C-alpha cells in the first residue's frame, strides 16, 4: 500500500524568464499591473501566421546574453531556453564551480521539441530533388532533446539531462521529475523549466483546433529555475526566491477534469503539509481554453471551498504557451512576490490539459 507522506521543500535560488512581456521578472510584473503587451514582431520569427491574436517575445536578442558564436544554427525554442538558463544562472551571484556543474542537471519541459525544426526538416525530404538532400547539421535540432542538451553544452552541466514532453503539464512535470533526481541524489541541483516557441506550425494548429477563446493569444516563452535543496542553497550562501513543496501530476482528469483536479490539489496540499485555508493565491493555467478554464476553477474550488483571494492568470498576459505554461506561471508568481504584491505567502500552481493530464504544485514564499 502506498503511503502518502510529506515531502521536504526544495528551493528556487535562480530564475530566468523570457516571455512576450520581455526578458526577466520585472517586465512580467509590469505586465501584471497592466502596462500592456507589445505588438508581436512576426517578421523576426518569419512565416505565415493565421488571423488570430499572437504574443511573441519582443526584440529577442540572444547574442546579448550568449555571444554571437554558434547561435545562428539554434532554433527559437533553444534560443529562448538558453537565454532563460543564462539569466537563471546569472542570478546566482557567483558562477557555479566546475565540480558543481558536474553535479547539476537539466530538466526541460517541451511539447514536441521545436515543431518548426522537425517539420521544416521533414519538409526538405519532400521538396528537394532527392529526399535525402537534407542539411545534416540541422538534424539534431529536429530531435526533442536538442534544447536540453544544448543547455548542458553551453553551461557545462553534466548531471541528468531530461526532456519531459507531457503536453500542457510539462512545466509542472519537469518540477516533479527534478524533485526525484535531486532528492534521490542523482544530482545536487538542476536547471528546471519549460519552453515553447511561437511558430506558424503551432499557431495554425491552435487556430484550426478552435480550442482557444476568441480573445486568447497564442504565445511563447521559457522559464528556467535553479532548483536545489534548502541545505545546498544555505551552504552555498544562495537566498531562496521560493520554496517548492509537493508537485503532483497525473491523468486524473481523463474522466472528469473538475473532480480529478480536486483530488490532485488535495493530495498536493496534504503532501506539502499545508492546510487548505493557508492557501492565499492560485495561478490558473487554462485561462484561454474553451471549457477547460471553468473546469480548472471548479476543480480548485472543490479542494479549497472557494478560489483563494488572489488569482493569477499568466496566460492572459503572455498568451497560451502550452508546454511552457506551468513554468511561466511559476515565474509569474515570483514576479508578483518580487514586486511586493500582496498575494500572501502560499500559492497553488495548477495545470490542466485536454488530454486528461493535470497537475498541482504548491509554492511558498520563503520566510523573511
Amino acid at each position, binding site marked *: 500500500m*502506498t*503511503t502518502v*507522506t*510529506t515531502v*521536504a521543500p526544495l528551493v528556487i535560488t535562480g530564475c530566468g524568464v523570457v516571455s512576450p512581456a520581455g526578458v526577466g521578472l520585472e517586465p512580467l510584473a509590469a505586465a501584471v499591473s497592466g502596462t500592456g503587451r507589445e505588438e508581436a514582431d512576426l517578421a523576426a520569427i518569419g512565416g*505565415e501566421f*493565421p488571423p488570430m491574436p499572437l504574443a511573441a517575445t519582443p526584440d529577442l536578442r540572444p547574442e546579448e546574453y550568449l555571444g554571437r558564436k554558434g547561435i545562428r544554427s539554434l532554433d527559437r525554442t533553444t534560443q529562448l531556453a538558453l537565454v532563460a538558463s543564462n539569466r537563471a544562472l546569472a542570478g546566482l551571484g557567483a558562477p557555479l564551480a566546475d565540480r558543481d*556543474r558536474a553535479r547539476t542537471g537539466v530538466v526541460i519541459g*517541451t*511539447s514536441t*521539441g521545436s*515543431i518548426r525544426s*522537425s*517539420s521544416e*526538416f*521533414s*519538409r*526538405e*525530404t*519532400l*521538396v528537394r530533388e532527392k529526399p*535525402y*538532400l*537534407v*542539411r545534416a547539421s540541422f538534424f*539534431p535540432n*529536429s*530531435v*526533442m*532533446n*536538442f534544447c*536540453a*542538451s544544448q543547455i*548542458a*553544452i553551453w*553551461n557545462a*552541466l*553534466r*548531471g541528468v*539531462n*531530461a526532456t*519531459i*514532453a*507531457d*503536453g500542457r503539464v*510539462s512545466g509542472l512535470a519537469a518540477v516533479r*521529475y527534478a524533485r*526525484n533526481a535531486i*532528492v*534521490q541524489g*542523482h544530482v545536487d541541483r538542476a536547471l528546471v523549466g519549460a519552453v515553447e516557441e511561437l511558430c506558424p506550425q503551432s499557431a495554425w*494548429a491552435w487556430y*484550426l*483546433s478552435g480550442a482557444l477563446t476568441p480573445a486568447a493569444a497564442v504565445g511563447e516563452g521559457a522559464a528556467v529555475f535553479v532548483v536545489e535543496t534548502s541545505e545546498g542553497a544555505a551552504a552555498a550562501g544562495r537566498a531562496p526566491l521560493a520554496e517548492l513543496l509537493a508537485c503532483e*501530476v*497525473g*491523468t*486524473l482528469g481523463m474522466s472528469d477534469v473538475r473532480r480529478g483536479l480536486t483530488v490532485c490539489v488535495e493530495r498536493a496540499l496534504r503532501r506539502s503539509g499545508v492546510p487548505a485555508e493557508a492557501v492565499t493565491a492560485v495561478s490558473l493555467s487554462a485561462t484561454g481554453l474553451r471549457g477547460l478554464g471553468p473546469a480548472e476553477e471548479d476543480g480548485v474550488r472543490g479542494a479549497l471551498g472557494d478560489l483563494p483571494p488572489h488569482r493569477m492568470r499568466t496566460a492572459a498576459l503572455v498568451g497560451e504557451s502550452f508546454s511552457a505554461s506551468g513554468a511561466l506561471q511559476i515565474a509569474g508568481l515570483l514576479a508578483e512576490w518580487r514586486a511586493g504584491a500582496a498575494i500572501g505567502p502560499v500559492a497553488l500552481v495548477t495545470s490542466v490539459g485536454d*488530454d*486528461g493530464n493535470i497537475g498541482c504544485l504548491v509554492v511558498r514564499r520563503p520566510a523573511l
Partner: protein
Amino acid sequence: MPEGASRRVAVTGLGAVSSLGTGAHTFAQAIREGRSGVSPIRSFDASGFPYTFAGEVHDFEPERLLRRLRIDEWGRSSLFAASAARLALMDADIDPGQVSAARAGSAMGTTLGESAVIEALTSQWVHGGLKDLDPALVRQAPAGRIATAVNAELGLTGEAHTIATACSASNYTLGYAYDMVRTGEAEFMISGGADSVNRWEHAGFYRLGALAESVCRPFDTHRSGILTAEGGVALFLEPFEGAVARGARIYAEVLGYGVNCDARHPVAPDPTSIAECIRAAHRNAGVRPEDIDYICAHGTGTPTNDATEVKAVREVFGDALPPISSIKSMIGHTMGAASGFGALICCMALHDGFLPPTANVTETDPALGSGVDCVPGTGRAASPRIVQNHGFAFGGNNAITILGRAA
C-alpha cells in the same frame, strides 16, 4: 514511509511490439536465434533513397491488442506504446482493476515522438499550406500522447511522462519508474518506449553518414552504421515483496541506474563521460565491475559508437570485459525504444539463462582491442546474475540501468 524509504523493485511483466514479432517471448526467442527483423521499407516511399532497409513492424494490429483506445484517434508511436503496455500488464498476470485503482502511472521514452503524424501533417503543409492541416491529425501530434496513451489504455490515473531524451530515453524511464516504486511514490509503474520509422530520420542519419545499407553489424570490422527501426516496449514494475506475495513470475530485480550528460557535442559521444555514467550506475545499484556478467550494449553499429563504447567500458572494467552484445544487429535502432528493448532482453536473459547475441558479425574488429566477446551469431546458454544495459543519445544523454536475477 518517510521520503526516500527504499523497497526492492521487481519486473514482473514484459511487452514488445517489434519487427521480430509481438510479445516478449516471441521477441526473445527470435533474438536468441539471431534472426533479423530488417526488411525493405514500406511505411514511406523510399525509392529516392540510396539505402532502403529498416526494422519496420509490418504485422502491427493494434485493434487486436488494445481494449480501450480508439485506434483512429492515436498516432503510430502511441499505439506501439499502449499495445506494449497492454501486453506487459497481461504478462504480469495481475488484476487490471487492482492496478488502475492503485497509484500507478507510466514513463515512456521516445526520440521523435509522433513522427509519422508530423510527416503526414508536413505533407498537408507542402501540398496545400498550413491552413489545410487536418485538426484531427494535429491533435495526435504532441509527443506527450505516448505515455498518455498508456494510461488511457490501462485506465491509470498516476503520472504519465513521455521522456524525450532521444535514444537513451527508455533507460531514463526505467530509472524513474524504479525510483517511483522504490520510494513508494507509486505502487505500479509501466516503463518503456516507442518510436516510428519515418522519412526525416532516415534522411538525417543517411546524411550524417551513419546509415548502413542493409545490414547492421555492431563490433564487426566492416560495420558501417545503423538501420532505422521502430516498435514499442514496456516493462511492468511493482514492489518485489508484493510480487513474491502474489506468486508473480519475477523476471528480474531493478538494482539501480545512472544518468549523466557529456555536455560537449550534439552528436559525438565521449568515452570518459560514459565511463562516469557506468560508475554512477554501479554506485547507485551497489555493485562492482566484477559483479557484472553481461553488458547489453548501445551498440549502434556505427564505427564511432562501438569504438567509443568499448573504450568507455575498458575505463571501468580494465581488460576483464564482460560479454557485450548488441540486439540492434537484429532489430535495428528503435530509437527511444532501444534501451527498453535492451532492458527487456536483459530481463529475459536473467530469467531464462542466456546471453543475447550480436548477429551479422564475421570478424570482431581487432581495433576494439583484445577480449571483446560480442556473443557473435546466436544466443549462448549462460546464467547471468547481474547485467548492465546501455543507452546513449544525441546531446550526450547517457543512461545505464542495472538489473539482477530475482533471488
